[in-house]
């Protein structure tokens, strides 16, 4: 660490105003503050809230919390591949894991290179400090797409969402919509044939660098939700639900395992990065709506099955709780979460076109979060005004 610090200090003058590598100043600054806490202090006379943990460190917690789901997702990619080839007996744990690792790694690299490339360019162009928001989005994006998504599509979608959902609103902390979900929404509406559940997109069927297996014939694996939508929501058997809790089902890379997501959720709640109010109320809203749908006879799916299938748990833990796009008032968080859960289950059950409603629900509520906050604040003002008049 010491050697790195010395090295950075040595090359630093090159990047300052007038140095020969000034064009890469924001890149240097971004990497330096990623590795070390910045030494600069705030100017006298400005008002600041001080915390030992800055937003780079905050986002590091999110990335650590995502690791269990990501690692399990890699394993599941290999597992689904072996299952598709009918070679499950021959496959070893590490063989399956490394296969998944090789399948997922290019997506992570593409997502970071494109996203950070745009962020660095914009920061340099506007003479601003690099904003770190993309560190989390960059790893979230590969986790919410099917494993067979072509890399060029991913690159276009990431560029689209970083420019049009984030930078034009003013960058990190100013965006209305969650950039990771905008990426997925772009892919979902632009290239529906590689994003939806009734085809071969969820399982990688080619071997990579000699690892894994090539499926002998095209293997069709729908996600359980996609299957249910095709069968008219006939409900799920015990085995499917058990697999869904462990995560051994076809699905987007990071969303399948409820256990791994739960580990991440515990870390986020323990460190206070994510709001428990949002997280819990998403589940409450989804449960209520699922129960209502079940009682009304619109669906055969048990109310709690919604939690373990598809992207519900992943969205509730990692997407809905994004502090930038969620409601900011404490009361507003309950309503925000409740409505996400309600809308997600409504889309799942009542809209035959989209078996998965979590993405659309969160994006919709992103839009309404400022309105929720406004109503909460106004109500508070009027209540206090009344109280003051009474006395």
């Amino acid at each position, binding site marked *: 660490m010491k050697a790195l610090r010395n090295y950075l200090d040595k090359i630093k003058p090159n990047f300052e105003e007038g140095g020969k590598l000034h064009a890469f100043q924001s890149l240097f600054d971004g990497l330096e503050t990623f590795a070390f806490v910045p030494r600069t202090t705030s100017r006298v006379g400005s008002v600041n809230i001080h915390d030992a943990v800055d937003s780079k460190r905050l986002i590091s917690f999110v990335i650590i919390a995502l690791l269990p789901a990501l690692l399990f997702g890699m394993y599941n990619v290999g597992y689904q591949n072996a299952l598709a080839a009918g070679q499950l007996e021959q496959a070893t744990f590490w063989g399956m894991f490394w296969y998944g690792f090789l399948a997922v790694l290019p997506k992570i690299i593409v997502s970071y290179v494109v996203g950070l490339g745009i962020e660095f360019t914009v920061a340099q162009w506007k003479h601003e400090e690099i904003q770190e928001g993309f560190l989390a989005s960059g790893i979230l994006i590969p986790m919410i797409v099917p494993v067979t998504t072509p890399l060029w599509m991913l690159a276009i979608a990431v560029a689209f969402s970083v420019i049009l959902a984030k930078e034009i609103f003013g960058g990190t902390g100013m965006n209305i919509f969650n950039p990771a979900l905008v990426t997925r929404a772009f892919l979902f*509406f632009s290239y529906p044939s*590689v994003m939806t559940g009734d085809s071969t997109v969820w399982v990688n069927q080619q071997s990579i660098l000699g690892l894994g297996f090539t499926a002998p014939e095209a293997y069709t694996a729908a996600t359980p939700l996609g299957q249910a939508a095709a069968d008219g929501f006939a409900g799920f058997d015990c085995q499917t639900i058990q697999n869904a809790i462990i995560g051994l089902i076809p699905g987007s890379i990071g969303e399948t395992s409820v256990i791994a997501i739960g580990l991440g959720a515990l870390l986020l709640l323990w460190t206070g990065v994510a709001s428990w109010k949002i997280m819990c109320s998403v589940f409450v809203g989804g449960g209520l709506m699922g129960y209502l749908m079940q009682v009304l006879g619109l669906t055969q799916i048990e109310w709690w099955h919604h939690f373990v299938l598809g992207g519900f748990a992943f969205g509730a833990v990692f997407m809905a709780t994004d502090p930038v796009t969620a409601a900011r008032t404490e009361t507003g968080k309950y309503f925000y979460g409740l409505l996400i859960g309600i809308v997600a289950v409504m889309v799942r059950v009542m809209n035959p076109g989209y078996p998965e409603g979590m993405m659309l629900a969160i994006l919709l509520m992103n839009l309404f979060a400022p309105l929720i906050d406004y109503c909460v604040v106004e109500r508070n003002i009027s209540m206090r005004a009344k109280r003051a008049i009474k006395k």
Partner: protein
Amino acid sequence: MGKLFSKENCEVFSNPLNLNNPIAVQVLGICSALAVTSQLEPAIVMGLSVTVITAFSNVIISLIRKSIPNRIRIIVQLVVVAALVTIVSQILKAFAYDVSVQLSVYVGLIITNCILMGRLEAFAMMNGPWESFLDGIGNGLGYALILVIVGFVRELLGFGTLLGFQIVPDFCYENGYMNNGMMTMPAMSLIIVGCVIWAHRSINKEEK
């Protein structure tokens, strides 16, 4: 002749093409720009129709502007526009039936296009026929220009074709290229119009 193409008249014609573009600057006529631009051909036809209607309604209103009672001027303008729209619609049905089917109600809805009423109220009611004609042509072509840009991008990326001819070569599709389905949706045309306005404003920043 010199008077017909004086500097003022040239500006009346050229301003709406760029600095005072009806879509990019005045942000008028957005609805039809979103609705008809999924392919290039209807976009061109729509742009030309609007150009013709704007030009001639401008001329007609300008000719009779002194005899229109002020209180009922909107009704008079609407009657003129409606008559011209009907004529254009019938001509399209007669000579370009396929395109008129594609454009469906949007030809009829030219009557509600804000650009028309805007030009009639703001220009034709106060200026002579020749200036009004130039203004109508300029505004119509300014509108058509944006429509063609949006239609070009949307047809190229959404269908891989231009005017119905395949542009994206076959080997791209064989190597995994796919048309962007979102380009064929109206939502994306709003984003493209936004990007056009963005580009237009950053180019013309100094001139304001």
